[in-house]
């Protein structure tokens, strides 16, 4: 038996799927084992991602042929720096969110659907892992489908009317997006005869002049498809409702990870499958850049007028996914590294903020920002963590939000676009305008004891957000290894 680390990526995906399939049976017959099974699979995911990252960093990227069939015939997984980076991000945040969720979900979900929630969560994680590692467009589409359905389901699983409504909206738009992705994939297959990203990259320059419209329309479909799923600006309409209505751990994962995985898929398709010359002729990246600038401004401005805290965070996500796309569409070394870094950093920040909001809702039932006056006295640690997240969103040095802004701004300046820097700064200011009042109101200006009913906050929930808060500070002060790793990633892609 020869099980070396090269099997690990596929073992991750397969084991997560296996756990997901087992979960309903386990939940029906041995309820107490269901939660440990999820935690164990996620912990395995996190640990093996860590191990893979170390292995890839040490030995270099490698490919894995499923079924033993080499690329043009079979499906290939490419475990490069990008893939392990994404795997690590998803697994760690996913683990923390579900550890937190064990408490929160018992409180918010019906008993009989908890098992299904775990199943869907594991399916979501497996599909994200699959999207990260696969090097085949159709395989990617399959995983995109899985993640789309399971993401819809973990929104609508809560017993409320808004959840159904939001989830339906999401389902319709997301299916539209999947359709676009499938069409574009089919078009590329039609004109090249390949689905493998590497082969596409080889063949496309040769057929560019024969089938210009096909390439153009496939680009358009990919932008729309991944744009809808990642909530890029004019296609974001589903996001605020969906992320607001979902249970807090779901919101954290959806805002923190799920929209990012599509951004990463976008990166894979656009910078790895399409040859770079295409973007000189077709200004699709310019359009994406333009849209991401609009997203940044729009998300920040609309977030300012929100009253519901989760809605505000959701709109803020629209702005932040704008940063990610901004970095990718600039296509410079530093800019793409900045976009990737922001995937990681924003995953941390936004999931922490959503989880903190979840604690607030869990223990006080307050959702409206206006009612949060004096909360800092009652929930000092939660609001302290929230403050760290807010500062990171604004981009205060010492937090990881600053590092990604720095990297993105530098990337924009590298390409001689100072106006992008101005946009980033403007949005930071807007972030400050909507995050800071919450923090100030929570801590200062309270006379006497505020009249709030505070339920007990379970330790697990508190520790998970404190851990993320610590991560925010840590990667704000010591991002050097991560950046060095991303440098390698970007050099490999571009």
């Amino acid at each position, binding site marked *: 038996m020869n099980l070396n680390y090269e099997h690990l990526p596929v073992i991750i995906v*397969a084991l997560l*799927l296996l756990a*997901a*399939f087992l979960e309903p049976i386990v939940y029906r017959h041995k309820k107490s084992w269901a939660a440990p099974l999820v935690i164990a699979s996620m912990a395995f995911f996190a640990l093996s991602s860590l191990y893979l990252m170390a292995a890839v960093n040490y030995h270099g990227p490698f490919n894995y042929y*499923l*079924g033993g*069939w080499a690329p*043009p*015939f*079979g*499906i290939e997984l490419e475990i490069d720096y990008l893939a392990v980076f994404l795997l690590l991000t998803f697994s760690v945040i996913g683990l923390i969110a579900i550890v937190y969720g064990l408490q929160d979900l018992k409180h918010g*979900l*019906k008993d*009989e*659907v908890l098992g*299904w*929630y775990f*199943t*869907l969560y594991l*399916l979501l994680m*497996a*599909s994200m892992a*699959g999207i990260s590692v696969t090097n085949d467009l*159709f*395989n990617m589409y*399959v*995983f995109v*489908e*899985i993640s789309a*359905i*399971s993401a*819809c*389901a973990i929104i*609508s*699983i809560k*017993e409320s009317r808004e959840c*159904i409504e939001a989830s339906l909206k999401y389902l319709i738009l997301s299916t539209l997006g999947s359709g676009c992705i499938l069409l574009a994939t089919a*078009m590329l*297959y*039609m*004109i*090249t*005869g*390949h689905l493998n990203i590497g082969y596409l990259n080889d*063949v496309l320059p040769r057929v560019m002049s024969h*089938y*210009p*419209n*096909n390439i*153009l*329309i496939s680009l358009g479909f990919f932008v729309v498809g991944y744009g809808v799923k990642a909530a890029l600006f*004019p296609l974001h*309409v589903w996001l605020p409702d969906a992320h607001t209505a979902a249970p807090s751990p779901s919101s954290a994962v959806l805002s923190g990870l799920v929209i990012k995985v599509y951004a990463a898929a976008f990166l894979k398709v656009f910078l790895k499958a399409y040859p770079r010359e295409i973007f000189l*002729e*077709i*200004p699709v990246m*310019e*359009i994406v850049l*333009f*849209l991401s600038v609009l997203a940044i401004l729009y998300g920040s401005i609309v977030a300012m007028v929100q009253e519901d805290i989760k809605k505000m965070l959701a709109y803020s996500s629209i702005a932040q996914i704008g940063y990610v796309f901004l970095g990718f569409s600039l296509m410079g070394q530093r800019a793409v590294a900045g976009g990737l870094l922001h995937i990681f950093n924003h995953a941390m920040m936004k999931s922490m903020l959503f989880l903190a909001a979840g604690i607030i809702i869990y223990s006080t039932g307050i959702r409206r920002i206006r009612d949060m006056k004096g909360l800092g006295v009652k929930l000092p640690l939660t609001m302290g963590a929230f403050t760290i997240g807010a500062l990171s969103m604004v981009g205060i040095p010492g937090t990881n939000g600053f590092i990604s802004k720095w990297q993105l701004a530098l990337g924009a300046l590298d390409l001689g676009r100072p106006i992008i820097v101005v946009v980033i700064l403007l949005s930071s200011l807007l972030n400050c305008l909507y995050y800071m009042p919450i923090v100030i109101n929570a801590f200062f200006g309270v006379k006497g004891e505020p009249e709030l009913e505070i339920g007990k906050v379970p330790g697990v929930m508190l520790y998970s957000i404190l851990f993320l808060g610590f991560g925010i500070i840590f990667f704000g002060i010591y991002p050097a290894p991560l950046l060095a790793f991303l440098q390698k990633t970007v050099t490999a892609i571009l």
Partner: protein
Amino acid sequence: MEVNSLTAMAILVLASYIFFYLPASRLRGVLVLIMLGIIGYALVATVAEMPTFGASANPPHNEVYQRYLHQAVEDTGAINAIAAIITDYRAFDTLGEVTVLFTAIAAALSNLKAH
């Protein structure tokens, strides 16, 4: 294939404006029709440009096609080439599709139980 990026952006902004912010009215209907016309035109132009369906000189008729047709039996032992492709060459996709079904069941059941 001269696409002016400014025009494209203008169309995008206009489209998003129409779809998300313009109240339902006759104007909106007309604009939507125009947008659909543009998209339809583009798609038809694309289809017109596609390689002829089934022609032997098509790009998909490459080494992959050759191998799937001629070596499937030897490679997989299945005389049905489609089965060879979906359950052997690209079995991982099929695993994904099975999972899609499972996900759909999970989603439907959880929703039925939750509400």
